[in-house]
Protein backbone atom coordinates (compact mmCIF):
# COMPACT_ATOMS: atom_id res chain seq x y z
CA UNK A 1 0.00 0.00 0.00
CA UNK A 2 1.51 3.26 -1.09
CA UNK A 3 0.76 6.55 0.51
CA UNK A 4 0.33 9.11 -2.29
CA UNK A 5 -0.31 12.79 -1.64
CA UNK A 6 -1.04 15.58 -4.08
CA UNK A 7 0.24 18.94 -2.84
CA UNK A 8 -1.43 22.10 -4.06
CA UNK A 9 -3.80 24.87 -3.01
CA UNK A 10 -6.82 23.30 -4.73
CA UNK A 11 -6.07 24.57 -8.22
CA UNK A 12 -7.40 23.02 -11.45
CA UNK A 13 -4.06 21.40 -12.25
CA UNK A 14 -3.91 19.86 -8.76
CA UNK A 15 -7.28 18.27 -9.37
CA UNK A 16 -6.14 16.95 -12.75
CA UNK A 17 -3.06 15.47 -11.05
CA UNK A 18 -5.18 13.59 -8.51
CA UNK A 19 -7.40 12.31 -11.32
CA UNK A 20 -4.48 10.96 -13.35
CA UNK A 21 -3.10 9.15 -10.29
CA UNK A 22 -6.49 7.68 -9.39
CA UNK A 23 -7.03 6.52 -12.99
CA UNK A 24 -3.62 4.85 -13.22
CA UNK A 25 -4.09 3.14 -9.85
CA UNK A 26 -7.43 1.79 -10.96
CA UNK A 27 -6.05 0.47 -14.24
CA UNK A 28 -2.93 -1.13 -12.85
CA UNK A 29 -4.61 -2.35 -9.69
CA UNK A 30 -1.97 -0.68 -7.52
CA UNK A 31 -3.14 -0.19 -3.96
CA UNK A 32 -2.77 3.39 -2.89
CA UNK A 33 -4.11 5.76 -0.30
CA UNK A 34 -4.57 9.00 -2.22
CA UNK A 35 -4.64 12.17 -0.15
CA UNK A 36 -4.52 15.89 -0.67
CA UNK A 37 -2.42 18.50 1.12
CA UNK A 38 -3.85 21.98 0.66
CA UNK A 39 -2.38 23.81 3.62
CA UNK A 40 0.41 26.10 2.46
CA UNK A 41 2.59 25.50 5.54
CA UNK A 42 2.53 21.76 5.07
CA UNK A 43 3.22 22.11 1.34
CA UNK A 44 6.21 24.32 2.02
CA UNK A 45 7.50 21.95 4.68
CA UNK A 46 8.00 19.35 1.94
CA UNK A 47 10.43 21.70 0.22
CA UNK A 48 8.14 22.12 -2.74
CA UNK A 49 8.24 25.44 -4.59
CA UNK A 50 5.87 24.83 -7.45
CA UNK A 51 2.53 23.10 -7.42
CA UNK A 52 0.99 20.65 -8.11
CA UNK A 53 3.51 18.33 -6.49
CA UNK A 54 3.31 14.62 -5.73
CA UNK A 55 4.64 12.85 -2.61
CA UNK A 56 4.92 9.05 -2.55
CA UNK A 57 5.63 7.46 0.86
CA UNK A 58 7.02 10.71 2.18
CA UNK A 59 9.32 11.45 -0.78
CA UNK A 60 8.65 14.29 -3.21
CA UNK A 61 8.73 12.71 -6.64
CA UNK A 62 7.36 15.50 -8.78
CA UNK A 63 6.63 19.22 -8.74
CA UNK A 64 5.34 21.94 -11.00
CA UNK A 65 3.08 20.22 -13.50
CA UNK A 66 0.43 17.62 -14.10
CA UNK A 67 2.47 14.41 -14.40
CA UNK A 68 2.44 12.16 -17.46
CA UNK A 69 0.75 8.79 -17.07
CA UNK A 70 4.03 6.99 -17.71
CA UNK A 71 5.56 8.80 -14.74
CA UNK A 72 2.65 7.91 -12.49
CA UNK A 73 2.93 4.25 -13.50
CA UNK A 74 6.58 4.26 -12.44
CA UNK A 75 5.80 5.70 -9.01
CA UNK A 76 3.03 3.22 -8.29
CA UNK A 77 5.08 0.14 -9.20
Amino acid at each position, binding site marked *: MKDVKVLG*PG*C*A*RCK*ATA*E*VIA*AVAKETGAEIALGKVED*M*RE*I*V*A*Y*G*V*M*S*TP*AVVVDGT*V*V*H*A*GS*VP*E*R*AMVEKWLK
Partner: protein
Amino acid sequence: MSVRTEAPRAPGTLVWVGGVAAGLSVWTLLYSQLVPFSEWAVSLLPLERHSHLGEAIAFFLYDVPKVLLLLTLVVFAMGVVRTFFSPERTRSLLAGRREGVGNAMAALLGIVTPFCSCSAVPLFIGFVSAGVPLGVTFSFLIAAPMVNEVALGLLFALLGWQVALTYLAFGLGVAIVAGWIIGTFRLESWLEPWVLQIHAGAAGPAEGVLTWAERIRAGLEAVREIVGRVWYWIIAGIAAGALIHGFAPEDLLASIMGKDAWWSVPAAVIIGIPLYSNAAGIIPVVEALLGKGAALGTVLAFMMSVTALSLPEMIILRKVLSVKLIAVFVAIVGAGILAVGFLFNLLFA
Protein backbone atom coordinates in the same frame (compact mmCIF):
# COMPACT_ATOMS: atom_id res chain seq x y z
CA MET B 1 -8.77 18.28 -18.43
CA SER B 2 -9.27 15.00 -20.18
CA VAL B 3 -7.20 12.02 -19.24
CA ARG B 4 -4.61 11.37 -21.87
CA THR B 5 -4.58 8.14 -23.80
CA GLU B 6 -1.56 5.91 -23.53
CA ALA B 7 1.37 7.74 -25.11
CA PRO B 8 3.16 5.81 -27.84
CA ARG B 9 6.61 4.54 -26.82
CA ALA B 10 8.90 7.52 -27.08
CA PRO B 11 10.39 7.77 -30.54
CA GLY B 12 14.03 8.73 -30.83
CA THR B 13 15.42 12.20 -30.37
CA LEU B 14 16.20 12.37 -34.08
CA VAL B 15 12.51 12.01 -34.95
CA TRP B 16 11.62 14.88 -32.63
CA VAL B 17 14.36 17.15 -33.90
CA GLY B 18 13.33 16.33 -37.48
CA GLY B 19 9.74 17.13 -36.54
CA VAL B 20 10.77 20.52 -35.18
CA ALA B 21 12.74 21.29 -38.37
CA ALA B 22 9.72 20.34 -40.49
CA GLY B 23 7.46 22.43 -38.25
CA LEU B 24 9.75 25.44 -38.60
CA SER B 25 9.72 25.14 -42.41
CA VAL B 26 5.93 25.07 -42.49
CA TRP B 27 5.91 28.02 -40.09
CA THR B 28 8.25 30.02 -42.37
CA LEU B 29 6.15 29.23 -45.42
CA LEU B 30 2.93 30.31 -43.70
CA TYR B 31 4.56 33.47 -42.40
CA SER B 32 5.83 34.46 -45.86
CA GLN B 33 2.29 34.16 -47.27
CA LEU B 34 0.62 36.50 -44.76
CA VAL B 35 0.32 39.60 -46.96
CA PRO B 36 -0.88 37.77 -50.11
CA PHE B 37 -3.34 35.86 -47.95
CA SER B 38 -4.91 38.92 -46.34
CA GLU B 39 -5.10 40.82 -49.66
CA TRP B 40 -6.69 37.81 -51.31
CA ALA B 41 -9.19 37.33 -48.46
CA VAL B 42 -10.21 41.00 -48.53
CA SER B 43 -10.62 40.93 -52.33
CA LEU B 44 -13.23 38.21 -51.88
CA LEU B 45 -15.38 40.54 -49.81
CA PRO B 46 -17.78 42.97 -51.50
CA LEU B 47 -15.92 45.93 -50.07
CA GLU B 48 -13.96 48.94 -51.21
CA ARG B 49 -10.38 48.08 -50.17
CA HIS B 50 -9.62 51.65 -49.10
CA SER B 51 -12.82 52.36 -47.25
CA HIS B 52 -12.73 52.51 -43.44
CA LEU B 53 -14.28 49.07 -43.15
CA GLY B 54 -11.98 47.64 -45.84
CA GLU B 55 -8.92 48.94 -43.97
CA ALA B 56 -10.18 47.51 -40.71
CA ILE B 57 -10.86 44.06 -42.14
CA ALA B 58 -7.56 43.88 -44.04
CA PHE B 59 -5.75 44.79 -40.83
CA PHE B 60 -7.63 42.11 -38.90
CA LEU B 61 -7.01 39.36 -41.46
CA TYR B 62 -3.32 40.17 -41.62
CA ASP B 63 -2.72 40.61 -37.90
CA VAL B 64 -4.54 37.61 -36.45
CA PRO B 65 -2.52 34.89 -38.25
CA LYS B 66 0.69 36.88 -37.91
CA VAL B 67 0.36 37.38 -34.17
CA LEU B 68 -0.69 33.79 -33.53
CA LEU B 69 2.24 32.47 -35.60
CA LEU B 70 4.83 34.62 -33.85
CA LEU B 71 3.38 33.96 -30.41
CA THR B 72 3.43 30.21 -31.02
CA LEU B 73 7.09 30.39 -31.99
CA VAL B 74 8.11 32.47 -28.96
CA VAL B 75 6.12 30.35 -26.50
CA PHE B 76 7.59 27.15 -27.95
CA ALA B 77 11.15 28.46 -27.74
CA MET B 78 10.61 29.67 -24.17
CA GLY B 79 9.03 26.35 -23.22
CA VAL B 80 12.15 24.51 -24.39
CA VAL B 81 14.52 26.97 -22.68
CA ARG B 82 12.64 26.60 -19.40
CA THR B 83 13.35 22.88 -19.24
CA PHE B 84 16.95 23.84 -18.44
CA PHE B 85 15.84 25.68 -15.30
CA SER B 86 13.78 24.83 -12.26
CA PRO B 87 12.78 26.81 -9.17
CA GLU B 88 15.02 24.53 -7.10
CA ARG B 89 18.08 25.19 -9.22
CA THR B 90 17.38 28.92 -9.31
CA ARG B 91 17.09 28.92 -5.52
CA SER B 92 20.42 27.24 -5.04
CA LEU B 93 22.00 29.73 -7.44
CA LEU B 94 20.58 32.64 -5.45
CA ALA B 95 20.97 31.38 -1.88
CA GLY B 96 23.37 33.50 0.12
CA ARG B 97 24.01 35.94 -2.75
CA ARG B 98 24.90 39.48 -1.87
CA GLU B 99 22.46 42.17 -2.81
CA GLY B 100 23.36 43.88 -6.05
CA VAL B 101 24.73 40.97 -8.04
CA GLY B 102 22.01 38.84 -6.48
CA ASN B 103 19.28 41.21 -7.66
CA ALA B 104 20.58 41.16 -11.23
CA MET B 105 20.88 37.37 -11.25
CA ALA B 106 17.42 36.97 -9.74
CA ALA B 107 15.82 39.20 -12.37
CA LEU B 108 17.56 37.33 -15.21
CA LEU B 109 16.64 33.93 -13.75
CA GLY B 110 13.08 35.23 -13.38
CA ILE B 111 12.77 35.26 -17.18
CA VAL B 112 13.78 31.64 -17.72
CA THR B 113 12.56 29.88 -14.56
CA PRO B 114 9.13 28.27 -14.88
CA PHE B 115 6.81 30.36 -12.74
CA CYS B 116 3.10 30.62 -12.16
CA SER B 117 1.68 33.23 -9.83
CA CYS B 118 -0.39 30.44 -8.28
CA SER B 119 2.80 29.06 -6.71
CA ALA B 120 4.13 32.45 -5.65
CA VAL B 121 3.70 31.61 -1.96
CA PRO B 122 5.63 28.32 -1.78
CA LEU B 123 8.27 29.86 -4.01
CA PHE B 124 8.58 32.92 -1.81
CA ILE B 125 8.95 30.85 1.35
CA GLY B 126 11.26 28.39 -0.36
CA PHE B 127 13.56 31.23 -1.37
CA VAL B 128 13.53 33.17 1.91
CA SER B 129 13.98 30.11 4.12
CA ALA B 130 16.90 28.90 2.02
CA GLY B 131 18.77 32.14 2.66
CA VAL B 132 17.91 34.13 -0.47
CA PRO B 133 17.80 37.77 0.73
CA LEU B 134 14.36 39.39 0.75
CA GLY B 135 15.27 42.04 -1.84
CA VAL B 136 16.73 39.42 -4.17
CA THR B 137 13.57 37.34 -3.81
CA PHE B 138 11.55 40.40 -4.77
CA SER B 139 13.67 41.01 -7.87
CA PHE B 140 12.76 37.50 -8.94
CA LEU B 141 9.09 37.93 -8.13
CA ILE B 142 8.89 41.19 -10.09
CA ALA B 143 10.77 39.98 -13.17
CA ALA B 144 9.14 36.55 -13.48
CA PRO B 145 5.61 37.70 -14.35
CA MET B 146 6.67 40.96 -16.01
CA VAL B 147 9.15 39.65 -18.57
CA ASN B 148 6.96 36.77 -19.74
CA GLU B 149 6.74 35.06 -23.11
CA VAL B 150 3.23 36.25 -23.94
CA ALA B 151 4.08 39.92 -23.39
CA LEU B 152 7.40 39.63 -25.23
CA GLY B 153 5.90 37.58 -28.07
CA LEU B 154 3.03 39.99 -28.62
CA LEU B 155 5.20 43.10 -28.41
CA PHE B 156 7.57 41.52 -30.91
CA ALA B 157 4.72 40.55 -33.24
CA LEU B 158 2.86 43.85 -33.13
CA LEU B 159 5.44 46.52 -32.40
CA GLY B 160 8.71 45.04 -33.60
CA TRP B 161 11.78 43.64 -31.89
CA GLN B 162 13.06 47.06 -30.85
CA VAL B 163 10.06 47.65 -28.60
CA ALA B 164 10.16 44.06 -27.29
CA LEU B 165 13.85 44.44 -26.44
CA THR B 166 13.26 47.81 -24.79
CA TYR B 167 10.51 46.28 -22.70
CA LEU B 168 12.82 43.41 -21.74
CA ALA B 169 15.71 45.71 -20.76
CA PHE B 170 13.64 48.18 -18.76
CA GLY B 171 11.52 45.44 -17.20
CA LEU B 172 14.72 43.88 -15.89
CA GLY B 173 15.90 47.31 -14.75
CA VAL B 174 12.75 47.92 -12.73
CA ALA B 175 12.96 44.44 -11.16
CA ILE B 176 16.62 44.85 -10.20
CA VAL B 177 16.35 48.37 -8.78
CA ALA B 178 13.01 47.84 -7.01
CA GLY B 179 14.26 44.60 -5.39
CA TRP B 180 17.50 46.27 -4.36
CA ILE B 181 15.65 49.20 -2.74
CA ILE B 182 13.30 46.86 -0.86
CA GLY B 183 16.40 44.97 0.30
CA THR B 184 18.04 48.09 1.73
CA PHE B 185 14.97 48.77 3.89
CA ARG B 186 15.49 45.51 5.85
CA LEU B 187 11.79 44.74 6.03
CA GLU B 188 12.07 41.11 7.13
CA SER B 189 9.98 41.93 10.21
CA TRP B 190 7.11 42.92 7.93
CA LEU B 191 6.66 39.38 6.74
CA GLU B 192 3.83 37.39 8.25
CA PRO B 193 5.30 35.91 11.45
CA TRP B 194 4.76 32.25 10.51
CA VAL B 195 6.95 32.61 7.43
CA LEU B 196 10.15 33.09 9.43
CA GLN B 197 9.39 30.19 11.77
CA ILE B 198 8.97 27.74 8.96
CA HIS B 199 11.87 25.59 8.09
CA ALA B 200 11.19 24.60 4.55
CA GLY B 201 12.58 21.28 3.46
CA ALA B 202 15.32 21.94 0.95
CA ALA B 203 15.12 18.61 -0.80
CA GLY B 204 12.55 19.01 -3.55
CA PRO B 205 12.08 16.36 -6.19
CA ALA B 206 15.10 14.60 -7.59
CA GLU B 207 15.88 15.88 -11.05
CA GLY B 208 16.70 13.56 -13.86
CA VAL B 209 18.47 14.78 -17.00
CA LEU B 210 15.95 15.40 -19.74
CA THR B 211 16.36 14.20 -23.28
CA TRP B 212 15.86 16.56 -26.22
CA ALA B 213 12.66 14.72 -27.05
CA GLU B 214 11.33 15.60 -23.60
CA ARG B 215 12.42 19.23 -23.91
CA ILE B 216 10.65 19.56 -27.28
CA ARG B 217 7.57 17.93 -25.78
CA ALA B 218 7.68 20.51 -22.98
CA GLY B 219 7.81 23.29 -25.60
CA LEU B 220 4.76 21.87 -27.39
CA GLU B 221 2.97 21.48 -24.07
CA ALA B 222 3.67 25.17 -23.33
CA VAL B 223 2.17 26.13 -26.71
CA ARG B 224 -0.93 24.03 -26.06
CA GLU B 225 -1.35 25.42 -22.57
CA ILE B 226 -0.54 29.11 -23.14
CA VAL B 227 -1.67 29.74 -26.72
CA GLY B 228 -4.76 27.62 -25.98
CA ARG B 229 -5.54 29.94 -23.07
CA VAL B 230 -4.97 33.33 -24.74
CA TRP B 231 -5.87 32.97 -28.43
CA TYR B 232 -9.42 34.23 -28.11
CA TRP B 233 -8.31 37.23 -26.11
CA ILE B 234 -5.86 38.03 -28.87
CA ILE B 235 -8.50 37.78 -31.58
CA ALA B 236 -10.89 39.97 -29.58
CA GLY B 237 -8.07 42.44 -28.96
CA ILE B 238 -7.09 42.59 -32.62
CA ALA B 239 -10.73 43.07 -33.62
CA ALA B 240 -10.95 46.03 -31.25
CA GLY B 241 -7.61 47.27 -32.57
CA ALA B 242 -8.84 46.96 -36.15
CA LEU B 243 -11.85 49.11 -35.37
CA ILE B 244 -9.59 51.74 -33.84
CA HIS B 245 -7.36 51.61 -36.92
CA GLY B 246 -10.30 52.04 -39.25
CA PHE B 247 -12.45 54.51 -37.37
CA ALA B 248 -10.93 56.29 -34.37
CA PRO B 249 -10.00 59.94 -34.97
CA GLU B 250 -6.29 60.55 -34.48
CA ASP B 251 -6.37 63.91 -32.74
CA LEU B 252 -8.56 62.65 -29.94
CA LEU B 253 -6.21 59.82 -28.94
CA ALA B 254 -3.12 61.93 -29.29
CA SER B 255 -4.62 64.40 -26.85
CA ILE B 256 -5.50 61.69 -24.29
CA MET B 257 -2.53 59.35 -24.61
CA GLY B 258 0.06 61.51 -26.35
CA LYS B 259 3.33 62.56 -24.78
CA ASP B 260 2.01 66.01 -23.91
CA ALA B 261 -0.58 64.58 -21.57
CA TRP B 262 1.73 63.97 -18.57
CA TRP B 263 -1.04 62.40 -16.49
CA SER B 264 -1.52 59.63 -19.02
CA VAL B 265 1.46 57.69 -17.59
CA PRO B 266 0.15 57.41 -13.99
CA ALA B 267 -3.33 56.78 -15.37
CA ALA B 268 -1.96 53.91 -17.50
CA VAL B 269 -0.25 52.39 -14.43
CA ILE B 270 -3.41 52.52 -12.33
CA ILE B 271 -5.64 51.14 -15.08
CA GLY B 272 -3.14 48.32 -15.64
CA ILE B 273 -3.34 46.89 -12.10
CA PRO B 274 -6.70 45.07 -12.34
CA LEU B 275 -6.20 43.97 -15.98
CA TYR B 276 -3.86 41.05 -15.35
CA SER B 277 -5.59 38.14 -17.03
CA ASN B 278 -6.40 40.12 -20.13
CA ALA B 279 -2.84 41.10 -21.07
CA ALA B 280 -3.14 39.11 -24.28
CA GLY B 281 -6.17 41.07 -25.44
CA ILE B 282 -4.79 44.42 -24.39
CA ILE B 283 -1.58 44.53 -26.40
CA PRO B 284 -3.31 44.55 -29.82
CA VAL B 285 -5.49 47.45 -28.68
CA VAL B 286 -2.43 49.26 -27.41
CA GLU B 287 -0.73 48.75 -30.77
CA ALA B 288 -3.62 50.43 -32.53
CA LEU B 289 -3.53 53.29 -30.01
CA LEU B 290 0.16 53.80 -30.73
CA GLY B 291 -0.63 54.06 -34.42
CA LYS B 292 -3.10 56.78 -33.58
CA GLY B 293 -0.70 58.93 -31.63
CA ALA B 294 -0.38 57.41 -28.15
CA ALA B 295 3.12 57.84 -26.71
CA LEU B 296 5.50 54.87 -26.44
CA GLY B 297 6.39 55.57 -22.80
CA THR B 298 2.75 55.56 -21.81
CA VAL B 299 2.27 52.26 -23.60
CA LEU B 300 5.32 50.64 -21.99
CA ALA B 301 4.21 51.80 -18.54
CA PHE B 302 0.77 50.37 -19.16
CA MET B 303 2.16 47.00 -20.23
CA MET B 304 4.48 46.79 -17.25
CA SER B 305 1.69 47.65 -14.87
CA VAL B 306 -0.59 45.02 -16.39
CA THR B 307 2.02 42.30 -15.96
CA ALA B 308 4.02 43.27 -12.85
CA LEU B 309 1.33 44.74 -10.61
CA SER B 310 -1.43 42.22 -10.60
CA LEU B 311 -4.24 42.26 -8.11
CA PRO B 312 -4.64 38.45 -7.90
CA GLU B 313 -0.93 38.03 -7.18
CA MET B 314 -1.08 40.61 -4.40
CA ILE B 315 -3.98 38.74 -2.84
CA ILE B 316 -2.02 35.49 -3.02
CA LEU B 317 1.09 37.12 -1.54
CA ARG B 318 -0.95 38.56 1.32
CA LYS B 319 -0.57 35.12 2.94
CA VAL B 320 3.13 35.75 3.47
CA LEU B 321 3.49 39.54 3.35
CA SER B 322 1.95 42.10 5.66
CA VAL B 323 -0.24 44.78 4.08
CA LYS B 324 2.52 47.31 4.80
CA LEU B 325 5.05 45.27 2.84
CA ILE B 326 2.67 44.84 -0.09
CA ALA B 327 2.11 48.60 -0.09
CA VAL B 328 5.88 49.22 -0.17
CA PHE B 329 6.21 46.69 -2.99
CA VAL B 330 3.47 48.32 -5.08
CA ALA B 331 4.77 51.83 -4.39
CA ILE B 332 8.35 51.04 -5.38
CA VAL B 333 7.52 48.98 -8.46
CA GLY B 334 4.88 51.56 -9.47
CA ALA B 335 7.44 54.36 -9.12
CA GLY B 336 9.90 52.43 -11.28
CA ILE B 337 7.29 51.92 -13.98
CA LEU B 338 6.35 55.61 -13.87
CA ALA B 339 10.00 56.53 -14.29
CA VAL B 340 10.29 54.29 -17.36
CA GLY B 341 7.12 55.81 -18.85
CA PHE B 342 8.20 59.40 -18.32
CA LEU B 343 11.74 58.70 -19.48
CA PHE B 344 10.55 57.31 -22.79
CA ASN B 345 8.07 60.07 -23.42
CA LEU B 346 10.84 62.56 -22.76
CA LEU B 347 13.50 60.84 -24.88
CA PHE B 348 11.32 60.06 -27.87
CA ALA B 349 9.50 63.32 -28.13
